[in-house]
């Protein structure tokens, strides 16, 4: 209905079209498919070279880790969960924006999502891959990590379903699977486009296999759209549950600073926050490189900046409430933990987190800043850093000052911790760059539906009233 009202508004304040530069069906296909069909710009090769090298370092480190054991990390009593768990939560959080953009915004009929959803979904998949890596290598004997799943075995034992850590296994693996299905299913029609345009034999075969024989039949579209809607409706509660369950890993433990009921919503808000920041970090350079400026417009970026600011303030609110409850509960231990967080050994980490997550995004109050590519890129990078620190603060401050003062300990990471975190970025970017190179980075079929001429009788009605 807002759109109906918009029609009567003067031209100057009407929201701009979602797609700009006079694109039509043909040009959208060309713009997007060309990325996958022609040799990428030189920058891609350089970036890919770096990413693959870093991935190589990661693999070498993992080999050493398997050989030597988790003792190469800084983890020890009382901080038994060090960087690996911090990194896990960090990456899972990033993985939330993709499904949120695709599913939640889809259900709310936010059509601006069509230009960025494929991109964000791909980011989700690769981020969840990185996330899944960390608990798997954190179990100490990664080759036995399959014990986490209820697989019949010769020991006749079953995993303990009463532990939040097992819930986590189910939540994260369900999330990875459903995100993959969602991403892939949305991509099938676009893969068919690439198949039909392919001139060489091998690409035609490979795109053809993954396009599953899609012909664009309307009877198929009918079921496809239904399936897409249902998947979106399923993915939405899923996305909310995943980070809630991740937060249970902490909240169900009876450790001051962890044992709080605000954790699930606080974690979910943080996840959306960090995910959107990551989308901006990736999107700003990618649209530049691949010439997608007409599809991913300033309006898209501006909307994302707004989401970042809003979720940043939610996270800030959660930081505040934690302190309030620590005081209000009258619990000495809880109170100590929070005073220690802000003023103790790790105060530097705490204030880094507050600065990056709460203070810096405030610049997005200004329209000028929301529309400045450099500013948004820099702020998004800071948010990524800040959100990593948030997980660090939660995980490490509470455990390093546990109930028994004689075992208090200042956690120091080792070089291996740092290199493996860095390496996970190699993993992420390798896959991401391959995605940008070979797959449709923008959901062509969906973008076409937001063009006015995609709707029968469009001369009588503006596009957005339909649907």
């Amino acid at each position: 209905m807002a759109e109906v009202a918009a029609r009567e508004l003067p031209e100057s304040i009407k929201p701009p079209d979602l797609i700009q530069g006079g694109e039509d069906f043909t040009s959208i296909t060309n713009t997007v498919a060309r990325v996958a069909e022609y040799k990428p710009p030189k920058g891609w090769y350089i970036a890919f070279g770096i990413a693959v090298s870093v991935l190589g370092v990661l693999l070498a480190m993992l080999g050493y880790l398997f050989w030597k054991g988790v003792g190469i990390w800084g983890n020890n009593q009382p901080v038994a969960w060090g960087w690996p768990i911090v990194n896990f939560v960090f990456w899972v959080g990033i993985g939330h924006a993709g499904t949120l953009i695709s599913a939640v915004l889809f259900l709310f009929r936010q059509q601006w999502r069509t230009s960025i959803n494929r991109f964000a979904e791909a980011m989700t998949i690769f981020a969840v891959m990185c996330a899944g890596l960390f608990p798997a290598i954190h179990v100490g004997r990664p080759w036995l990590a399959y014990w986490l799943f209820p697989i019949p075995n010769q020991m006749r034992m079953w995993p303990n379903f009463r532990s939040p850590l097992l819930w986590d296994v189910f939540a994260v693996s369900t999330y990875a699977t459903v995100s993959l299905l969602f991403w892939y299913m949305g991509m099938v029609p676009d893969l068919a486009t690439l198949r039909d345009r392919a001139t060489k034999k091998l690409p035609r075969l490979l795109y053809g296999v993954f396009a599953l024989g899609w012909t664009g039949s309307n009877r198929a579209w009918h079921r496809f759209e239904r399936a897409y809607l249902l998947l979106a409706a399923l993915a939405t509660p899923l996305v909310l549950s995943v980070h809630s369950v991740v937060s249970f890993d902490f909240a169900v433990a009876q450790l001051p600073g962890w044992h709080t009921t605000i954790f699930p919503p606080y974690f979910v808000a943080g996840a959306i926050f960090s995910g959107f920041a990551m989308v901006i970090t990736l999107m700003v350079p990618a649209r530049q490189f691949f010439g997608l400026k007409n599809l991913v417009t300033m309006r898209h970026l501006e909307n994302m900046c707004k989401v970042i600011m809003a979720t940043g303030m939610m996270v800030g609110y959660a930081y505040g409430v934690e302190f309030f409850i620590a005081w209000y509960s009258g619990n000495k231990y809880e109170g100590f933990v929070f005073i220690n967080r802000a003023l103790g050994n790790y105060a530097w980490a705490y204030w880094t987190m507050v600065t990056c997550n709460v203070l810096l995004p405030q610049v997005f109050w200004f329209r000028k800043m929301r529309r400045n590519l450099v500013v948004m890129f820099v702020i998004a990078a800071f948010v990524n850093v800040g959100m990593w620190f948030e997980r660090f603060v939660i995980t490490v401050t509470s455990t390093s000052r546990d109930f028994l003062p004689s075992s208090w300990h200042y956690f120091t990471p080792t070089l291996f911790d740092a290199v493996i975190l860095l390496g996970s970025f190699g993993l992420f970017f390798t896959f991401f760059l391959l995605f940008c190179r070979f797959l449709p980075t923008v959901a062509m079929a969906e973008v076409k539906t937001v063009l006015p001429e995609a709707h029968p009788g469009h001369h009588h009605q503006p596009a957005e009233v339909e649907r």
Partner: protein
Amino acid sequence: MSAEPRLYGVLAEFEDVDSLVAAARKVREAGYTRFDAHTPFPVHGLDDAMGVQPTILPWIVLLCGLIGLGGGFLLQWWTNAVDYPFVISGKPLFGLPGAVPVAYELTILLASFGAFFGMLALNGLPKWYHPLFRVARFSRATSDRFYLVIQGSDPFFSPATPEWLASLGASAVETVPEPDEPDTPPRWFKGLTWIVTSLALLPPAMIAKARFSEMQHPRVHLVKNMDFQKKFKAQQASPLFADGRAMRPDPAGTVARGDLDPTSTLATGRNPDGSYATAYPLAVDQALIERGRERFAIYCATCHGLDGRGDSMVARRALLRQGQQGTNWVPPADLTGEAVAAQPPGRIFETISRGRNTMPGYSQQIRPRDRWAIALYLEALRQAQAGLDAPGDKDNQEEAGR
């Protein structure tokens, strides 16, 4: 091979959405049933024009979701409460709230499978081949053109159909032959598929084998660092200590377990003739009573209460839960009452050492000397309380007056 190729159908191309929707409506109104539109994106209003019935997919998804939900609860209940029950952190073997997260995730997982695979199955996908793939112009169906196809097998189909279709605003009309031989995947591709499928079957086969066989040898350890640990074992040399031995001698005065004469009165509470000791086998003094008070507060008061009357937190809590989950709680005895008062110290000692009825023994935690001290303290406690309860006692009268 027949001379005249069989007809798959007739294909009409449209430039824009409006003419497509209008044409689709006319085709349906003309009575055709085996026809379809092919478009690069879902065109709204086309379902209505074509008379496409709502799909049953939502029901499939619902069914799968319910299977996930029920299966999730069943899985957790059966594995943790039936097949392999073990108590952890005092939690019940199966509790509904704790089972929700996993059942919730499995609901979504299975429902999503239902949506994805259900959609594919209903659409007859994946499909290697379609006659339309041989039509050159059809490659724009996934980009920027719109097509209507009426199949030759439609009962209404007649030789005039193509011409009629052209009159509906199509920019081009073409008949599509049914090829004699459909395209098939290249051989190497088929081979690859076979190899991948067989490899994918390996893990389940290994699981099945593991489940139904017994291992004769310990698991092979790829990384041996647990088998050969850096630590000192008995009889090894160690540079850490002056005497060069890894094993440390006992501290002076240590009595090994069982070294105490197990038949002495001090150790059993009984006289050589088997009767309970009526006197204490060690010197009775104020210090021993104090020691007994301290040990009693540590080891006994949790159940019997500081005043020995059995009204402790543990007892109260146990009474509250009496009867729940099959509990049958015997309250701790009143240590100041007649029954215990009548017992000789040797018998109290034996109760502490070996336990009695439902009370556990404490010989592992409390040294013999301290057990005697507790027995002595009990006697002192009883006497002190008897004095307190004596008629005319000031504190007691206040108590009664309240």
